[in-house]
Protein backbone atom coordinates (compact mmCIF):
# COMPACT_ATOMS: atom_id res chain seq x y z
CA UNK A 1 0.00 0.00 0.00
CA UNK A 2 2.74 2.38 1.04
CA UNK A 3 4.80 1.48 -2.00
CA UNK A 4 1.92 2.31 -4.26
CA UNK A 5 1.44 5.73 -2.69
CA UNK A 6 5.10 6.59 -3.12
CA UNK A 7 4.91 5.67 -6.76
CA UNK A 8 1.80 7.72 -7.21
CA UNK A 9 3.57 10.75 -5.76
CA UNK A 10 6.29 10.34 -8.36
CA UNK A 11 3.80 10.69 -11.17
CA UNK A 12 3.53 14.11 -12.71
CA UNK A 13 0.08 15.48 -13.59
CA UNK A 14 0.93 14.74 -17.20
CA UNK A 15 1.39 11.04 -16.40
CA UNK A 16 -1.98 10.84 -14.76
CA UNK A 17 -3.67 12.67 -17.62
CA UNK A 18 -1.93 10.40 -20.10
CA UNK A 19 -2.97 7.22 -18.30
CA UNK A 20 -6.57 8.44 -18.09
CA UNK A 21 -6.49 9.51 -21.73
CA UNK A 22 -5.34 6.06 -22.81
CA UNK A 23 -8.06 4.56 -20.66
CA UNK A 24 -10.63 6.67 -22.49
CA UNK A 25 -9.11 5.64 -25.79
CA UNK A 26 -9.45 1.97 -24.94
CA UNK A 27 -13.01 2.65 -23.90
CA UNK A 28 -13.63 4.35 -27.24
CA UNK A 29 -12.43 1.20 -29.00
CA UNK A 30 -13.97 -1.41 -26.73
CA UNK A 31 -17.30 0.12 -25.80
CA UNK A 32 -18.84 0.13 -29.30
CA UNK A 33 -17.83 -3.52 -29.63
CA UNK A 34 -19.26 -4.30 -26.20
CA UNK A 35 -22.45 -2.56 -27.27
CA UNK A 36 -22.69 -4.82 -30.30
CA UNK A 37 -22.07 -7.83 -28.10
CA UNK A 38 -24.83 -7.02 -25.60
CA UNK A 39 -27.29 -6.19 -28.37
CA UNK A 40 -26.55 -9.56 -29.93
CA UNK A 41 -27.30 -11.25 -26.59
CA UNK A 42 -30.52 -9.31 -26.04
CA UNK A 43 -33.97 -10.30 -27.17
CA UNK A 44 -34.44 -8.70 -30.60
CA UNK A 45 -37.66 -6.72 -30.23
CA UNK A 46 -36.65 -5.49 -26.79
CA UNK A 47 -33.26 -4.30 -28.10
CA UNK A 48 -35.05 -2.27 -30.74
CA UNK A 49 -36.61 -0.14 -27.99
CA UNK A 50 -33.14 1.21 -27.24
CA UNK A 51 -31.74 2.23 -23.87
CA UNK A 52 -29.41 -0.72 -23.49
CA UNK A 53 -25.98 0.51 -22.47
CA UNK A 54 -24.06 -1.81 -20.21
CA UNK A 55 -25.72 -5.20 -19.96
CA UNK A 56 -28.37 -7.12 -21.90
CA UNK A 57 -31.82 -6.20 -20.57
CA UNK A 58 -33.53 -9.39 -21.67
CA UNK A 59 -30.74 -11.90 -22.00
CA UNK A 60 -31.31 -14.30 -24.85
CA UNK A 61 -29.26 -16.64 -27.00
CA UNK A 62 -32.07 -16.82 -29.55
CA UNK A 63 -30.19 -14.62 -32.00
CA UNK A 64 -27.25 -16.98 -32.03
CA UNK A 65 -29.54 -19.99 -32.35
CA UNK A 66 -31.19 -18.27 -35.30
CA UNK A 67 -27.77 -17.83 -36.92
CA UNK A 68 -26.79 -21.45 -36.38
CA UNK A 69 -30.13 -22.67 -37.75
CA UNK A 70 -29.69 -20.63 -40.92
CA UNK A 71 -28.25 -23.02 -43.51
CA UNK A 72 -27.11 -20.22 -45.80
CA UNK A 73 -25.06 -18.54 -43.08
CA UNK A 74 -23.55 -21.82 -41.92
CA UNK A 75 -22.55 -22.60 -45.48
CA UNK A 76 -20.96 -19.13 -45.64
CA UNK A 77 -18.88 -19.87 -42.56
CA UNK A 78 -17.82 -23.16 -44.09
CA UNK A 79 -16.72 -21.46 -47.33
CA UNK A 80 -14.90 -18.72 -45.44
CA UNK A 81 -13.14 -21.21 -43.19
CA UNK A 82 -12.03 -23.46 -46.07
CA UNK A 83 -10.95 -20.43 -48.01
CA UNK A 84 -8.94 -19.01 -45.12
CA UNK A 85 -7.17 -22.30 -44.44
CA UNK A 86 -6.49 -23.41 -48.02
CA UNK A 87 -5.86 -19.89 -49.31
CA UNK A 88 -3.44 -19.01 -46.53
CA UNK A 89 -1.56 -22.27 -46.89
CA UNK A 90 -1.33 -21.90 -50.68
CA UNK A 91 -0.24 -18.26 -50.53
CA UNK A 92 2.34 -18.59 -47.79
CA UNK A 93 3.91 -21.75 -49.16
CA UNK A 94 3.98 -20.65 -52.81
CA UNK A 95 5.10 -17.06 -52.13
CA UNK A 96 7.61 -18.35 -49.58
CA UNK A 97 9.11 -20.93 -51.93
CA UNK A 98 9.52 -18.37 -54.70
CA UNK A 99 11.06 -15.99 -52.17
CA UNK A 100 13.49 -18.71 -51.17
CA UNK A 101 14.45 -19.42 -54.79
CA UNK A 102 14.88 -15.74 -55.67
CA UNK A 103 16.87 -15.19 -52.50
CA UNK A 104 19.85 -17.05 -53.95
CA UNK A 105 22.25 -14.54 -55.47
CA UNK A 106 23.62 -17.17 -57.83
CA UNK A 107 20.18 -18.03 -59.23
CA UNK A 108 20.50 -17.80 -62.99
CA UNK A 109 18.16 -15.20 -64.44
CA UNK A 110 17.52 -13.66 -61.02
CA UNK A 111 17.59 -10.16 -62.50
CA UNK A 112 15.00 -11.16 -65.08
CA UNK A 113 12.67 -12.67 -62.47
CA UNK A 114 12.96 -9.60 -60.23
CA UNK A 115 12.32 -7.16 -63.08
CA UNK A 116 9.34 -9.22 -64.18
CA UNK A 117 7.87 -8.80 -60.70
CA UNK A 118 8.78 -5.17 -60.07
CA UNK A 119 7.03 -4.07 -63.27
CA UNK A 120 3.77 -5.59 -62.01
CA UNK A 121 3.90 -3.33 -58.96
CA UNK A 122 3.34 -0.30 -61.19
CA UNK A 123 1.27 -1.48 -64.13
CA UNK A 124 -1.99 -3.35 -64.25
CA UNK A 125 -4.55 -3.93 -66.92
CA UNK A 126 -7.35 -2.67 -64.73
CA UNK A 127 -10.54 -4.26 -63.54
CA UNK A 128 -12.24 -5.13 -66.82
CA UNK A 129 -9.35 -6.97 -68.55
CA UNK A 130 -8.69 -8.80 -65.28
CA UNK A 131 -12.34 -9.78 -65.07
CA UNK A 132 -12.12 -11.18 -68.59
CA UNK A 133 -8.98 -13.12 -67.67
CA UNK A 134 -10.71 -14.74 -64.70
CA UNK A 135 -13.66 -15.60 -66.94
CA UNK A 136 -11.43 -17.04 -69.68
CA UNK A 137 -9.51 -19.15 -67.18
CA UNK A 138 -12.82 -20.70 -66.16
CA UNK A 139 -12.38 -19.56 -62.58
CA UNK A 140 -15.76 -17.80 -62.36
CA UNK A 141 -18.18 -19.58 -60.05
CA UNK A 142 -15.53 -21.93 -58.72
CA UNK A 143 -13.99 -22.09 -55.26
CA UNK A 144 -10.52 -21.69 -56.84
CA UNK A 145 -11.16 -18.07 -57.76
CA UNK A 146 -10.51 -17.37 -54.07
CA UNK A 147 -7.28 -19.34 -53.93
CA UNK A 148 -5.29 -19.19 -57.16
CA UNK A 149 -5.31 -15.44 -57.97
CA UNK A 150 -4.28 -14.76 -54.33
CA UNK A 151 -1.55 -17.40 -54.26
CA UNK A 152 1.26 -15.05 -55.07
CA UNK A 153 2.02 -11.49 -54.12
CA UNK A 154 5.23 -9.92 -55.30
CA UNK A 155 5.44 -7.46 -52.42
CA UNK A 156 5.05 -10.23 -49.84
CA UNK A 157 7.58 -12.25 -51.80
CA UNK A 158 10.10 -9.40 -51.42
CA UNK A 159 9.50 -9.28 -47.67
CA UNK A 160 9.97 -13.03 -47.28
CA UNK A 161 13.00 -13.05 -49.55
CA UNK A 162 14.58 -10.28 -47.48
CA UNK A 163 14.01 -12.30 -44.35
CA UNK A 164 15.48 -15.48 -45.82
CA UNK A 165 18.53 -13.59 -47.02
CA UNK A 166 19.09 -12.17 -43.56
CA UNK A 167 19.51 -15.67 -42.11
CA UNK A 168 23.10 -16.77 -41.43
CA UNK A 169 24.44 -18.53 -44.52
CA UNK A 170 26.76 -20.86 -42.61
CA UNK A 171 23.99 -23.27 -41.64
CA UNK A 172 22.72 -23.71 -45.19
CA UNK A 173 26.26 -24.09 -46.46
CA UNK A 174 27.20 -26.76 -43.96
CA UNK A 175 23.98 -28.63 -44.73
CA UNK A 176 24.89 -28.42 -48.40
CA UNK A 177 28.30 -29.91 -47.65
CA UNK A 178 26.50 -32.69 -45.81
CA UNK A 179 24.70 -33.44 -49.03
CA UNK A 180 21.33 -31.73 -48.50
CA UNK A 181 19.59 -30.38 -51.62
CA UNK A 182 17.90 -26.98 -51.93
CA UNK A 183 14.50 -28.34 -51.04
CA UNK A 184 15.85 -30.22 -48.02
CA UNK A 185 17.64 -27.10 -46.79
CA UNK A 186 14.47 -25.05 -47.21
CA UNK A 187 12.32 -27.39 -45.16
CA UNK A 188 14.86 -28.46 -42.55
CA UNK A 189 16.86 -25.28 -41.97
CA UNK A 190 15.33 -22.15 -43.48
CA UNK A 191 11.71 -22.81 -42.56
CA UNK A 192 12.25 -23.53 -38.83
CA UNK A 193 14.30 -20.32 -38.54
CA UNK A 194 11.68 -18.24 -40.34
CA UNK A 195 8.69 -18.69 -38.08
CA UNK A 196 8.31 -14.92 -37.36
CA UNK A 197 7.87 -14.07 -41.03
CA UNK A 198 5.76 -17.17 -41.72
CA UNK A 199 3.44 -16.27 -38.84
CA UNK A 200 3.18 -12.67 -40.03
CA UNK A 201 2.38 -13.69 -43.58
CA UNK A 202 -0.08 -16.33 -42.39
CA UNK A 203 -1.86 -13.71 -40.31
CA UNK A 204 -2.01 -11.16 -43.15
CA UNK A 205 -3.20 -13.72 -45.68
CA UNK A 206 -5.60 -15.31 -43.23
CA UNK A 207 -7.17 -11.96 -42.37
CA UNK A 208 -7.41 -11.08 -46.05
CA UNK A 209 -9.13 -14.34 -46.93
CA UNK A 210 -11.45 -14.25 -43.94
CA UNK A 211 -12.40 -10.59 -44.40
CA UNK A 212 -12.65 -10.30 -48.17
CA UNK A 213 -16.13 -9.97 -49.64
CA UNK A 214 -15.42 -8.42 -53.00
CA UNK A 215 -14.00 -11.34 -54.97
CA UNK A 216 -17.34 -13.09 -54.57
CA UNK A 217 -19.25 -9.93 -55.52
CA UNK A 218 -17.35 -9.88 -58.81
CA UNK A 219 -16.94 -13.52 -59.75
CA UNK A 220 -19.47 -15.68 -57.90
CA UNK A 221 -23.14 -16.03 -58.77
CA UNK A 222 -23.81 -19.33 -57.04
CA UNK A 223 -25.19 -18.83 -53.52
CA UNK A 224 -23.48 -21.97 -52.27
CA UNK A 225 -20.01 -20.51 -52.82
CA UNK A 226 -20.56 -17.17 -51.08
CA UNK A 227 -18.26 -16.53 -48.10
CA UNK A 228 -19.78 -15.16 -44.91
CA UNK A 229 -18.53 -11.62 -45.54
CA UNK A 230 -20.37 -11.41 -48.84
CA UNK A 231 -23.57 -12.73 -47.27
CA UNK A 232 -23.13 -10.15 -44.52
CA UNK A 233 -22.48 -7.45 -47.07
CA UNK A 234 -25.83 -8.17 -48.66
CA UNK A 235 -27.58 -8.12 -45.28
CA UNK A 236 -25.84 -4.85 -44.39
CA UNK A 237 -26.78 -3.28 -47.70
CA UNK A 238 -30.39 -4.29 -47.11
CA UNK A 239 -30.45 -2.85 -43.61
CA UNK A 240 -28.80 0.31 -44.86
CA UNK A 241 -31.66 0.62 -47.31
CA UNK A 242 -34.15 -0.07 -44.53
CA UNK A 243 -32.56 2.66 -42.41
CA UNK A 244 -33.09 5.05 -45.27
CA UNK A 245 -36.68 3.96 -45.55
CA UNK A 246 -37.32 4.86 -41.90
CA UNK A 247 -35.60 8.16 -42.54
CA UNK A 248 -38.05 9.11 -45.25
CA UNK A 249 -40.99 7.86 -43.14
CA UNK A 250 -42.17 4.79 -44.95
CA UNK A 251 -44.65 2.46 -43.27
CA UNK A 252 -43.44 1.18 -39.91
CA UNK A 253 -44.03 -2.41 -40.95
CA UNK A 254 -40.92 -2.39 -43.11
CA UNK A 255 -38.85 -0.85 -40.34
CA UNK A 256 -40.27 -3.19 -37.72
CA UNK A 257 -39.37 -6.31 -39.63
CA UNK A 258 -35.87 -5.02 -40.21
CA UNK A 259 -35.32 -3.99 -36.60
CA UNK A 260 -36.16 -7.40 -35.19
CA UNK A 261 -33.47 -8.89 -37.34
CA UNK A 262 -30.95 -6.28 -36.17
CA UNK A 263 -29.94 -8.44 -33.21
CA UNK A 264 -29.53 -11.47 -35.46
CA UNK A 265 -27.36 -9.39 -37.74
CA UNK A 266 -25.24 -8.36 -34.76
CA UNK A 267 -24.93 -11.99 -33.67
CA UNK A 268 -23.68 -12.97 -37.13
CA UNK A 269 -21.12 -10.19 -37.05
CA UNK A 270 -19.92 -11.18 -33.60
CA UNK A 271 -19.39 -14.76 -34.77
CA UNK A 272 -17.64 -13.51 -37.91
CA UNK A 273 -15.23 -11.36 -35.94
CA UNK A 274 -14.58 -13.72 -33.05
CA UNK A 275 -11.96 -16.02 -34.66
CA UNK A 276 -9.65 -13.15 -35.61
CA UNK A 277 -10.09 -11.28 -32.35
CA UNK A 278 -9.16 -14.41 -30.45
CA UNK A 279 -6.09 -15.17 -32.56
CA UNK A 280 -4.36 -11.83 -33.13
CA UNK A 281 -3.06 -11.05 -29.61
CA UNK A 282 -1.00 -14.23 -29.73
CA UNK A 283 0.54 -13.36 -33.07
CA UNK A 284 1.16 -9.76 -32.06
CA UNK A 285 4.89 -10.01 -31.42
CA UNK A 286 5.35 -11.58 -34.84
CA UNK A 287 3.41 -9.13 -36.94
CA UNK A 288 4.99 -6.09 -35.35
CA UNK A 289 8.34 -7.56 -36.41
CA UNK A 290 6.97 -8.49 -39.82
CA UNK A 291 5.71 -4.99 -40.55
CA UNK A 292 9.10 -3.59 -39.66
CA UNK A 293 10.91 -5.97 -42.03
CA UNK A 294 8.48 -4.92 -44.73
CA UNK A 295 9.03 -1.24 -44.11
CA UNK A 296 12.82 -1.51 -44.21
CA UNK A 297 12.95 -3.08 -47.62
CA UNK A 298 9.62 -2.09 -49.08
Amino acid at each position, binding site marked *: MRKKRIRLNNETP*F*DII*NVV*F*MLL*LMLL*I*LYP*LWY*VLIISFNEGRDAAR*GGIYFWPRMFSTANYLAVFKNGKILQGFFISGSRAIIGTFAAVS*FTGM*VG*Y*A*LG*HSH*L*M*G*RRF*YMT*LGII*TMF*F*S*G*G*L*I*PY*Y*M*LIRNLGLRNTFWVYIIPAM*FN*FYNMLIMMTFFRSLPKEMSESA*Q*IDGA*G*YIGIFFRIVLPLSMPIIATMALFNGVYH*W*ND*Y*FVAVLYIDSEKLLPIQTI*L*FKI*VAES*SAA*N*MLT*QINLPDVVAQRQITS*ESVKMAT*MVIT*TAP*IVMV*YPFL*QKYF*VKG*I*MIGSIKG
Partner: protein
Amino acid sequence: MDKPRAVVHVSPRKKTFFARLMEQWPLQVIALMGAAWLIIFSYVPLPGIYIAFSNYKVTEGVFAGAFVGLKHFSEFLTDKNLPNVLINTLAISGLNLSIGFVVPIIFALLLNELKNLRYKRMVQTISYLPHFLSWVVLGGFLISWTSEYGLINQILFQLKLIKTPTYLLSDENYFWGVALFSHLWKETGWNAILFIAAIAGVNPELYESATLDGANRFQKARYITVPGIAPTIAILFILQSAYILSSNFDQIYVLRNTLNANRSTVLDIYTYRIGIQLGRFSYSTAVGLTKSVVSLILLLITNKVSERATGSTFLR
Protein backbone atom coordinates in the same frame (compact mmCIF):
# COMPACT_ATOMS: atom_id res chain seq x y z
CA MET B 1 40.66 -34.32 -49.71
CA ASP B 2 36.91 -34.10 -49.38
CA LYS B 3 36.75 -30.50 -48.27
CA PRO B 4 38.16 -28.64 -51.28
CA ARG B 5 35.69 -30.45 -53.53
CA ALA B 6 32.83 -29.29 -51.37
CA VAL B 7 34.04 -25.69 -51.63
CA VAL B 8 34.01 -25.98 -55.40
CA HIS B 9 30.47 -27.28 -55.10
CA VAL B 10 29.21 -24.16 -53.28
CA SER B 11 30.86 -21.71 -55.66
CA PRO B 12 29.16 -22.66 -58.90
CA ARG B 13 30.55 -19.77 -60.94
CA LYS B 14 33.43 -21.88 -62.18
CA LYS B 15 31.15 -24.42 -63.82
CA THR B 16 29.70 -24.38 -67.28
CA PHE B 17 26.28 -22.89 -67.98
CA PHE B 18 24.64 -26.30 -68.26
CA ALA B 19 26.26 -27.69 -65.13
CA ARG B 20 25.17 -24.62 -63.17
CA LEU B 21 21.64 -25.02 -64.44
CA MET B 22 21.60 -28.68 -63.49
CA GLU B 23 22.95 -27.87 -60.06
CA GLN B 24 20.21 -25.34 -59.33
CA TRP B 25 17.31 -26.95 -61.16
CA PRO B 26 14.98 -27.10 -58.11
CA LEU B 27 15.33 -23.35 -57.65
CA GLN B 28 14.74 -22.76 -61.34
CA VAL B 29 11.55 -24.83 -61.28
CA ILE B 30 10.17 -22.77 -58.38
CA ALA B 31 11.24 -19.45 -59.90
CA LEU B 32 9.65 -20.40 -63.21
CA MET B 33 6.39 -21.27 -61.46
CA GLY B 34 6.43 -17.82 -59.88
CA ALA B 35 7.17 -16.24 -63.24
CA ALA B 36 4.35 -18.23 -64.85
CA TRP B 37 1.90 -16.98 -62.24
CA LEU B 38 3.04 -13.39 -62.81
CA ILE B 39 2.71 -13.71 -66.58
CA ILE B 40 -0.79 -15.17 -66.38
CA PHE B 41 -2.27 -12.89 -63.72
CA SER B 42 -0.32 -9.67 -64.25
CA TYR B 43 0.85 -9.63 -67.87
CA VAL B 44 -1.93 -11.35 -69.80
CA PRO B 45 -4.50 -8.67 -68.77
CA LEU B 46 -2.15 -5.84 -69.80
CA PRO B 47 -3.01 -5.77 -73.54
CA GLY B 48 -6.62 -5.52 -72.39
CA ILE B 49 -6.08 -1.80 -71.82
CA TYR B 50 -6.60 -1.60 -75.59
CA ILE B 51 -10.33 -1.45 -74.84
CA ALA B 52 -9.72 2.01 -73.37
CA PHE B 53 -8.93 3.13 -76.91
CA SER B 54 -11.71 1.26 -78.69
CA ASN B 55 -15.44 0.65 -78.57
CA TYR B 56 -15.45 -2.67 -76.75
CA LYS B 57 -18.57 -4.80 -76.68
CA VAL B 58 -18.95 -7.73 -74.31
CA THR B 59 -20.18 -10.00 -77.06
CA GLU B 60 -17.04 -9.47 -79.13
CA GLY B 61 -13.38 -10.12 -78.46
CA VAL B 62 -11.04 -7.68 -76.72
CA PHE B 63 -9.46 -6.53 -79.98
CA ALA B 64 -12.63 -6.60 -82.10
CA GLY B 65 -13.85 -3.11 -81.15
CA ALA B 66 -13.19 -0.22 -83.51
CA PHE B 67 -10.20 1.95 -82.57
CA VAL B 68 -11.38 5.36 -81.39
CA GLY B 69 -8.13 6.84 -80.06
CA LEU B 70 -8.51 9.12 -77.08
CA LYS B 71 -12.28 9.55 -77.38
CA HIS B 72 -13.01 8.00 -73.97
CA PHE B 73 -10.26 10.03 -72.33
CA SER B 74 -11.56 13.34 -73.64
CA GLU B 75 -15.05 12.28 -72.68
CA PHE B 76 -13.78 11.63 -69.15
CA LEU B 77 -12.05 14.99 -68.89
CA THR B 78 -15.25 16.77 -69.89
CA ASP B 79 -17.49 14.48 -67.81
CA LYS B 80 -19.85 16.68 -65.84
CA ASN B 81 -19.45 14.35 -62.83
CA LEU B 82 -15.67 14.69 -62.83
CA PRO B 83 -15.34 17.84 -60.65
CA ASN B 84 -17.56 16.39 -57.96
CA VAL B 85 -15.86 12.99 -58.05
CA LEU B 86 -12.42 14.61 -57.86
CA ILE B 87 -13.45 16.84 -54.95
CA ASN B 88 -14.77 13.83 -53.03
CA THR B 89 -11.63 11.80 -53.74
CA LEU B 90 -9.24 14.59 -52.80
CA ALA B 91 -11.26 15.59 -49.72
CA ILE B 92 -11.40 12.09 -48.23
CA SER B 93 -7.78 11.30 -49.14
CA GLY B 94 -6.74 14.74 -47.90
CA LEU B 95 -8.40 14.19 -44.53
CA ASN B 96 -6.72 10.80 -44.24
CA LEU B 97 -3.39 12.25 -45.26
CA SER B 98 -3.55 15.15 -42.79
CA ILE B 99 -5.57 14.30 -39.68
CA GLY B 100 -5.42 10.58 -40.36
CA PHE B 101 -1.64 10.80 -40.63
CA VAL B 102 -0.94 12.99 -37.60
CA VAL B 103 -3.15 11.17 -35.09
CA PRO B 104 -1.12 7.90 -35.15
CA ILE B 105 2.09 9.91 -34.58
CA ILE B 106 0.56 11.65 -31.56
CA PHE B 107 -0.72 8.30 -30.32
CA ALA B 108 2.76 6.76 -30.65
CA LEU B 109 4.36 9.70 -28.81
CA LEU B 110 1.85 9.52 -25.97
CA LEU B 111 2.18 5.75 -25.76
CA ASN B 112 5.93 6.19 -25.45
CA GLU B 113 5.40 8.33 -22.35
CA LEU B 114 3.52 5.59 -20.49
CA LYS B 115 5.76 4.31 -17.70
CA ASN B 116 4.02 1.07 -16.82
CA LEU B 117 5.10 -1.40 -19.48
CA ARG B 118 2.22 -3.82 -18.96
CA TYR B 119 -0.31 -1.02 -19.29
CA LYS B 120 1.51 0.20 -22.39
CA ARG B 121 1.36 -3.24 -23.97
CA MET B 122 -2.33 -3.57 -23.11
CA VAL B 123 -3.16 -0.22 -24.72
CA GLN B 124 -1.18 -1.19 -27.79
CA THR B 125 -2.82 -4.60 -28.14
CA ILE B 126 -6.29 -3.10 -27.86
CA SER B 127 -5.43 -0.34 -30.31
CA TYR B 128 -4.77 -2.96 -33.02
CA LEU B 129 -8.06 -4.71 -32.49
CA PRO B 130 -10.25 -2.69 -34.89
CA HIS B 131 -7.75 -3.20 -37.71
CA PHE B 132 -8.77 -6.84 -37.85
CA LEU B 133 -12.45 -6.14 -38.33
CA SER B 134 -13.54 -6.31 -41.95
CA TRP B 135 -15.09 -3.21 -43.49
CA VAL B 136 -18.27 -5.19 -44.05
CA VAL B 137 -18.59 -5.89 -40.33
CA LEU B 138 -17.49 -2.40 -39.38
CA GLY B 139 -19.85 -0.97 -41.98
CA GLY B 140 -22.67 -2.96 -40.41
CA PHE B 141 -21.68 -1.69 -36.97
CA LEU B 142 -21.46 1.89 -38.26
CA ILE B 143 -24.86 1.73 -39.88
CA SER B 144 -26.20 0.55 -36.54
CA TRP B 145 -24.23 3.05 -34.42
CA THR B 146 -25.14 6.01 -36.63
CA SER B 147 -28.77 5.04 -37.17
CA GLU B 148 -31.63 7.10 -35.76
CA TYR B 149 -31.93 4.99 -32.62
CA GLY B 150 -28.30 3.86 -32.62
CA LEU B 151 -25.53 4.40 -30.12
CA ILE B 152 -24.27 7.79 -31.29
CA ASN B 153 -27.70 9.41 -31.54
CA GLN B 154 -28.71 7.97 -28.18
CA ILE B 155 -25.62 9.33 -26.44
CA LEU B 156 -25.85 12.74 -28.09
CA PHE B 157 -29.55 12.86 -27.19
CA GLN B 158 -28.91 11.91 -23.55
CA LEU B 159 -26.22 14.56 -23.33
CA LYS B 160 -28.78 17.01 -24.78
CA LEU B 161 -26.43 17.89 -27.62
CA ILE B 162 -29.06 17.20 -30.25
CA LYS B 163 -32.83 17.60 -30.26
CA THR B 164 -33.82 15.20 -32.99
CA PRO B 165 -31.87 12.09 -34.00
CA THR B 166 -30.68 11.76 -37.59
CA TYR B 167 -29.29 8.77 -39.42
CA LEU B 168 -25.82 10.17 -40.07
CA LEU B 169 -25.23 8.19 -43.25
CA SER B 170 -28.42 9.51 -44.82
CA ASP B 171 -27.14 13.08 -44.69
CA GLU B 172 -24.45 13.72 -47.27
CA ASN B 173 -22.95 16.51 -45.14
CA TYR B 174 -21.77 14.02 -42.53
CA PHE B 175 -20.20 11.54 -44.94
CA TRP B 176 -16.62 12.83 -45.00
CA GLY B 177 -16.69 13.03 -41.21
CA VAL B 178 -17.97 9.47 -40.84
CA ALA B 179 -15.34 8.29 -43.33
CA LEU B 180 -12.52 10.04 -41.44
CA PHE B 181 -13.61 8.96 -37.97
CA SER B 182 -14.21 5.36 -38.95
CA HIS B 183 -10.78 5.30 -40.60
CA LEU B 184 -9.21 6.75 -37.45
CA TRP B 185 -11.03 4.31 -35.21
CA LYS B 186 -9.99 1.34 -37.30
CA GLU B 187 -6.40 2.15 -38.25
CA THR B 188 -4.83 4.55 -35.72
CA GLY B 189 -3.29 1.78 -33.60
CA TRP B 190 -2.16 -0.18 -36.63
CA ASN B 191 -0.62 2.81 -38.42
CA ALA B 192 1.20 3.76 -35.22
CA ILE B 193 3.25 0.52 -35.30
CA LEU B 194 5.92 1.94 -37.58
CA PHE B 195 6.21 5.11 -35.51
CA ILE B 196 6.42 3.11 -32.28
CA ALA B 197 9.17 1.00 -33.85
CA ALA B 198 10.98 4.15 -34.99
CA ILE B 199 10.75 5.64 -31.50
CA ALA B 200 12.21 2.44 -30.05
CA GLY B 201 15.10 2.81 -32.46
CA VAL B 202 16.15 6.26 -31.23
CA ASN B 203 19.55 6.14 -29.53
CA PRO B 204 18.93 5.98 -25.73
CA GLU B 205 22.20 7.80 -25.04
CA LEU B 206 20.63 10.95 -26.45
CA TYR B 207 17.94 10.82 -23.74
CA GLU B 208 20.54 10.19 -21.05
CA SER B 209 22.67 13.16 -21.98
CA ALA B 210 19.56 15.33 -22.34
CA THR B 211 18.56 14.33 -18.81
CA LEU B 212 21.98 15.32 -17.55
CA ASP B 213 21.55 18.68 -19.29
CA GLY B 214 18.29 19.11 -17.38
CA ALA B 215 15.83 18.62 -20.22
CA ASN B 216 12.27 17.77 -19.18
CA ARG B 217 10.10 15.18 -20.88
CA PHE B 218 8.43 17.58 -23.27
CA GLN B 219 11.76 18.97 -24.33
CA LYS B 220 13.07 15.43 -24.84
CA ALA B 221 10.05 14.52 -26.94
CA ARG B 222 10.32 17.74 -28.90
CA TYR B 223 14.07 17.80 -29.50
CA ILE B 224 15.02 14.10 -29.53
CA THR B 225 12.06 11.82 -30.29
CA VAL B 226 10.41 13.88 -33.02
CA PRO B 227 13.64 14.61 -34.93
CA GLY B 228 14.59 10.95 -34.41
CA ILE B 229 11.49 9.67 -36.18
CA ALA B 230 11.35 12.49 -38.74
CA PRO B 231 12.82 10.35 -41.55
CA THR B 232 10.13 7.70 -40.96
CA ILE B 233 7.45 10.37 -40.91
CA ALA B 234 8.77 11.95 -44.09
CA ILE B 235 9.05 8.77 -46.11
CA LEU B 236 5.62 7.48 -45.06
CA PHE B 237 4.00 10.82 -45.79
CA ILE B 238 5.60 11.08 -49.20
CA LEU B 239 4.71 7.49 -50.04
CA GLN B 240 1.09 7.93 -48.99
CA SER B 241 0.67 11.21 -50.82
CA ALA B 242 1.41 9.36 -54.06
CA TYR B 243 -1.86 7.46 -53.53
CA ILE B 244 -4.02 10.54 -53.10
CA LEU B 245 -6.27 9.54 -56.01
CA SER B 246 -6.94 6.13 -54.48
CA SER B 247 -9.53 5.60 -51.80
CA ASN B 248 -10.28 2.79 -49.46
CA PHE B 249 -12.73 1.12 -51.82
CA ASP B 250 -14.16 -1.30 -49.25
CA GLN B 251 -14.83 1.46 -46.73
CA ILE B 252 -16.56 3.80 -49.15
CA TYR B 253 -18.42 1.00 -50.91
CA VAL B 254 -19.90 -0.25 -47.65
CA LEU B 255 -20.80 3.18 -46.26
CA ARG B 256 -22.22 4.77 -49.39
CA ASN B 257 -25.90 4.88 -50.30
CA THR B 258 -28.08 6.86 -52.63
CA LEU B 259 -28.71 9.60 -50.07
CA ASN B 260 -25.03 10.38 -49.52
CA ALA B 261 -23.87 9.56 -53.07
CA ASN B 262 -23.14 13.24 -53.73
CA ARG B 263 -20.29 13.22 -51.24
CA SER B 264 -19.32 9.54 -51.30
CA THR B 265 -18.70 8.92 -55.00
CA VAL B 266 -14.91 8.81 -55.23
CA LEU B 267 -12.90 7.97 -58.34
CA ASP B 268 -12.52 4.26 -57.54
CA ILE B 269 -16.24 3.87 -56.86
CA TYR B 270 -17.09 5.85 -60.01
CA THR B 271 -14.84 3.63 -62.16
CA TYR B 272 -16.42 0.52 -60.70
CA ARG B 273 -19.97 1.79 -61.07
CA ILE B 274 -19.75 2.88 -64.66
CA GLY B 275 -17.69 -0.18 -65.58
CA ILE B 276 -19.24 -3.19 -63.91
CA GLN B 277 -22.66 -1.90 -62.97
CA LEU B 278 -23.47 0.23 -66.01
CA GLY B 279 -21.47 -1.90 -68.44
CA ARG B 280 -19.46 0.94 -70.01
CA PHE B 281 -16.29 -1.14 -70.06
CA SER B 282 -14.21 1.01 -72.43
CA TYR B 283 -14.98 4.26 -70.65
CA SER B 284 -14.32 2.74 -67.24
CA THR B 285 -10.98 1.31 -68.36
CA ALA B 286 -9.99 4.72 -69.74
CA VAL B 287 -10.80 6.32 -66.37
CA GLY B 288 -8.84 3.63 -64.51
CA LEU B 289 -5.89 4.02 -66.88
CA THR B 290 -5.84 7.79 -66.42
CA LYS B 291 -5.77 7.30 -62.68
CA SER B 292 -2.94 4.74 -62.89
CA VAL B 293 -0.82 7.02 -65.05
CA VAL B 294 -1.34 10.01 -62.75
CA SER B 295 -0.57 7.84 -59.71
CA LEU B 296 2.60 6.51 -61.31
CA ILE B 297 3.78 10.05 -62.11
CA LEU B 298 3.00 11.11 -58.53
CA LEU B 299 4.94 8.11 -57.24
CA LEU B 300 7.99 8.96 -59.33
CA ILE B 301 7.82 12.61 -58.20
CA THR B 302 7.41 11.76 -54.53
CA ASN B 303 10.23 9.24 -54.83
CA LYS B 304 12.49 12.02 -56.12
CA VAL B 305 11.34 14.32 -53.30
CA SER B 306 12.04 11.58 -50.77
CA GLU B 307 15.51 11.06 -52.22
CA ARG B 308 16.26 14.75 -51.84
CA ALA B 309 14.70 15.12 -48.41
CA THR B 310 15.76 11.99 -46.58
CA GLY B 311 18.36 10.35 -48.78
CA SER B 312 16.31 7.17 -48.98
CA THR B 313 14.02 5.91 -51.70
CA PHE B 314 11.45 3.19 -51.87
CA LEU B 315 12.04 2.41 -55.53
CA ARG B 316 15.28 0.65 -56.17
